[in-house]
């Protein structure tokens, strides 16, 4: 999501920054020698995904790919999204530096939630795995839309009511598209590189320290 400078109120900006800092701190700890290339590749994918845009009515909507990133990265989705958005802000002037916290949070929080909800199901063969990855991709976009709308409404409820509603409606097609993309990518990776699938919850990933 690319909320520009000067749109949101200070409390919302600070709230977003705090969430993002916490997510970054935890996310960076989860990066180890095994998943560092994966985080880099997904960050690059997030960075370019926003450039693929889907015209919807008067507005234009772009791919987010946050669901896919969340499912593959878990907590490390925070640094991946943060780096992608930071570079988009600097190179393309999308969004803004002050809104970086809010924008990261609106994309990474739903991604993380999808990982926690559907991550374990991705290893399953057959319909269950496909449905889980579709839902993961779609729900992450839907929730990103909801969080962005919430950020706008919390800043100025009167001015942004119609904008927030329009934002949610505009994300319905993106939701479906991303769900399909996510289902395909996960199915492909499950076949080609099963190691990339999230590990079952009880055997947590080893964190290499010292």
């Amino acid at each position: 999501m690319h909320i520009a400078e000067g749109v949101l109120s200070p409390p919302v900006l600070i709230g977003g920054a705090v969430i993002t800092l916490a997510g970054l701190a935890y996310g960076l700890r989860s990066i180890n020698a095994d998943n560092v290339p994966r985080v880099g590749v997904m960050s690059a994918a997030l960075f370019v995904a926003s450039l693929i845009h889907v015209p919807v009515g008067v507005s234009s909507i772009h791919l987010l790919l946050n669901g896919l990133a969340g499912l593959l990265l878990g907590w490390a989705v925070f640094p991946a999204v943060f780096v992608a958005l930071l570079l988009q802000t600097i190179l393309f002037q999308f969004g803004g530096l002050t809104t970086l916290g809010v924008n990261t949070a609106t994309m990474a929080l739903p991604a993380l939630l999808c990982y926690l909800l559907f991550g374990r199901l991705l290893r399953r063969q057959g319909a269950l795995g496909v449905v889980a990855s579709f839902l993961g991709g779609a729900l992450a976009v839907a929730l990103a839309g909801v969080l962005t709308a919430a950020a706008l409404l919390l800043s100025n409820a009167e001015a942004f009511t119609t904008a927030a509603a329009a934002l949610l409606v505009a994300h319905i097609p993106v939701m479906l598209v991303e769900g399909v993309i996510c289902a395909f990518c996960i199915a492909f990776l499950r076949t080609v590189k099963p190691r990339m699938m999230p590990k079952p919850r009880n055997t947590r990933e080893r964190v290499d320290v010292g």
Partner: protein
Amino acid sequence: MWANPGFRCLPPMTAILVALTAAERVMAHRLDAWVHVIDNEIVVEAYFNDGEAAQNADVTVSDSDGKLLAKGKTDTAGKFTFTPARLPDRIEIVVNTGQGHRCTKTMTRKDLVALNNHPQMSKNEEPRASARLAFRHPTTTTSDAPATPGDDELTEIKQSLTSIQASLRNIRHELAKLNKPRTGVSFDSILAGVGFIFGLTGVAAYCLARRQRPN
């Protein structure tokens, strides 16, 4: 064939290549506005960086003290036209499409000099370009007292002004075209961004490798 390790890096690479080729064609959106003066009206044209007009966007115009001068919405071509009741030294134009897209343009009186027929301008300011044109007319030469040109001359002057304005309009369109690549997303910056990310990944991998090195 998928058992071959060489193919393992295929999916991420393909994803990036597909994304890159698509990115060259289409742009994500950033709102921009172009403010200019045509026929004594201030025209605000709001557009996304892919060139699409920003329709039905809220436009508010205020002076430096924040007092509202004009307010409205852009039409289907992304245009909003207004004539301010008064002309302060500095006006601020804010375009907001909602959905988090907003842009601000600040115009000084100098920028809006083409608004020469505005009552406030002619009262307070030196004679503007059009006025000077009239003074230089052969029939109204050396005399210090401002002479009134005849009706024929007036229509002539008006005609030449209209043609000048028309050609100016063309020049402005050319300028807008020239400015577009700068506001948009260039392929170079996409590559730069991807390069940055891979660089960061390398640094992270290096740090992790150092940490893991057995003593």
